[in-house]
């Protein structure tokens, strides 16, 4: 597994970087080349008061759940909320971990060797580095990454894992029951009794199953149930990296921008 990771990781990262570069490049290009005046007319007298950034952010992030999914598709809605709390926390954790690891490498400091359970080594191999980053919820790695805050970090990630398990289970149920994008409950009084069918989306099922496996490998790794499973965890994580630029997973990158624009429109009272 370690050898495999060492070979696959650079390729996967290259595909990831090229894919993300291509997709984000289009946005950057448009940002640079499409500059002209637009937005709310400054000559509009008595415009509605602008909305604050926090209420606008709240409306964009939680409005869909509060006004739609909570009633129309509660299983998907709960899954969406729980899972995103988890994944956002986890991604932030992985990003911080990666930055710390790379900082150590740049200044030539030792890093742990996960396979040997050594606190200090100069094993800068991709497999080891990925095991540190993706296994940041284990004691060895957490203590290296966060020192005295290691236990606190592990505590936070445990909560995130809990959210991930619950959220993912909900989303899996919604997918398998063909409730993805379906209306299964009353949206409101006016639309009482309206039901729409959902879809059985294969790309979702594949990706969600990978994520489901990632969560369980993380759990097994933390509980030290299967030795070396952190490498499988890292390999699955890498798979997602490769898929990310070419599947709906790319929303993990672009949706921050989408939310930014949605919040900006909301603040200016131009919702769409």
């Amino acid at each position, binding site marked *: 597994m370690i050898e495999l990771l060492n070979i696959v990781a650079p390729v996967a990262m290259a595909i990831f970087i090229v894919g993300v570069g291509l997709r984000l490049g289009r946005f950057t290009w448009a940002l640079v080349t499409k500059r002209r005046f637009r*937005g709310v007319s*400054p000559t509009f007298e*008595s415009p*509605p008061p602008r909305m604050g950034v926090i209420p606008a952010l709240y409306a964009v992030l939680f409005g869909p759940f509060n006004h739609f999914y909570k009633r129309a598709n509660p299983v998907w809605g709960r899954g969406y909320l729980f899972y995103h709390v988890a994944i956002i926390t986890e991604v932030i954790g992985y990003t911080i971990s990666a930055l710390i690891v790379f900082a150590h490498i740049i200044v030539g400091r030792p890093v742990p060797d996960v396979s040997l359970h050594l606190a200090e080594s100069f094993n800068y191999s991709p497999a080891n580095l990925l095991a540190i980053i993706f296994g940041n919820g284990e004691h060895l790695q957490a203590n290296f990454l966060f020192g005295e805050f290691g236990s606190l970090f592990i505590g936070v990630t445990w909560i995130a894992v809990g959210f991930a398990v619950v959220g993912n289970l909900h989303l899996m149920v919604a997918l398998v029951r063909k409730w993805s994008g379906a209306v299964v409950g009353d949206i409101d009084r006016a639309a009482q009794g309206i039901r729409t069918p*959902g879809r059985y989306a294969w790309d979702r099922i594949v990706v969600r199953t990978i994520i489901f496996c990632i969560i369980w490998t993380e759990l097994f790794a933390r509980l030290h149930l299967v030795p070396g499973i952190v490498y499988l965890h890292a390999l699955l994580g890498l798979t997602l990296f490769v898929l990310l630029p070419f599947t709906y997973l790319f929303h993990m990158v672009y949706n921050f921008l989408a939310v930014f*624009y949605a919040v900006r429109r909301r603040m200016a009272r131009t919702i769409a």
Partner: protein
Amino acid sequence: MEAEMQAFVDSLRHNLTAEDVVNLEACMNCKMCGEACAWYLVTGDEKLHPTHKTGLIRQIYRRYMTLEGQIGGALGLVPTPTLADLKENMQYFWACTACGRCTLACPSGISIRRIVRLARAAYADSGLSYANPTIRSIIENTDRRRHSFGLTAAQVLGRVGLFLRSEGLEAPVNVQNAEFLFVCPAAGNTKIPDYGIKLIKILNAAGVSYTISPYVIDTGTEIDHIAVHHKLSKQMLEDWEQEADRLGVQKILLVECGCDTRTLYAEASETLGRPFRYPIVSVDALMLDLIKQGRLPIEKTHLKVTLHDPCYATRLSGLGDLFRELLNLVTDNFIEMTPNREYNYCCNGGAGGMRLPENTATRRKISVLKANQIRATGADFVTSPCVVCTLSLEDTCQTYQLSPSGDRMALVLFEVVYAAMEPALAKLGELDRMRVPAVLRNRDHEFFIAHSVEGQMMRLMQQPDFPELLDWLEQDDIVKRFSKDHPQVYDDIRALREMVMNCENCD
């Protein structure tokens, strides 16, 4: 690639902003936006789902405008949309009111309406939308006559003149240096000029300094929102500004039209590439100020009325609070419908929903949601600060028999204001205030004739085609509707005809 497809892609490329790139790239195809769209919810038709529209544009974007799409397309790994796909799916871009409600249900707040607008513009730029007779007529009428329904200034002024005459009223035309330029959207002066007389009465009664243009008789609403023909839309906005320059007015009066509101609130900046040059005042904000300043006397009506928030004025321009403040001032029996404000269901009439006859059956079917909303309030009337919404709501009320007697149930918001103003004026013994506009009061005869609708009518009477105009008025549905409360209107037409004939005999 076929020429039309190339033109379509070029249009997308030209109009796409960085924000649109995000709208196209960030969609994860989760389909949750369908929970908000009345067209999809009621019909369950996948082709009316928001993502059916955005999906096609995304495919085109991916295939023709991205590197991986071009490579993947050449290898047959990425679908290649064809001209036939564009033609086949065109109808769905207009079975959508671009109301933006879907954005409220999207987990990332993606604006589907922006993609719909991009698509409509590309259909116009490629010439494909000309295949639809209504869209074609909007483009051609706007291009040729600067009025999307193809009415002439003579028809617009002649009909309003007839109604004003019947009520013994006046309105100012072509007055220099008035405060406001009043331009009625084509839908207003084509479909509801008889109701619109009440707005003239309000402005007259409050002593507002305004003028009507004898040339600019449309605001460009339909070219901007139905055809999305940016070039003509820009010309309409520039015409508006140039007419304001010519007349030396200070401000533009934004009449109750949701689409105009959105245009002047946001879209104009994009169309012109600069801010609109004149201050824009919504007539609702104006009426509110007039009431607060005591210039417009009112006595709260007891009408049991509910408010329909126009998508374009509330969800897309944020004026929901303004409408409520005004309504609460003039009625003591206002009932909110649910959901409301930005979450309100669309009336399904705007941006082509009602204008395209092919939508009629679906529109009426999906309006069951609107009918449910209205019915649940128990209100006797539903009002909206938008001409098109009001027309669509009236159709819904009739279709679902919400008013037992079949009476008119949908009112434009200014009609509710009028209902509060008229008794107040009557009590003060000042009903006459409605008759003459401020800018025509105490003026000499010459000025009056040069700048009144009556004067315009006299000028029209001297035109050789005036009898044809009278024929048109006699057959006109709006005149027929007006005649229900004003049966003498046909006597007026007859009198006008006789006057012309007598004059011809004089010659």
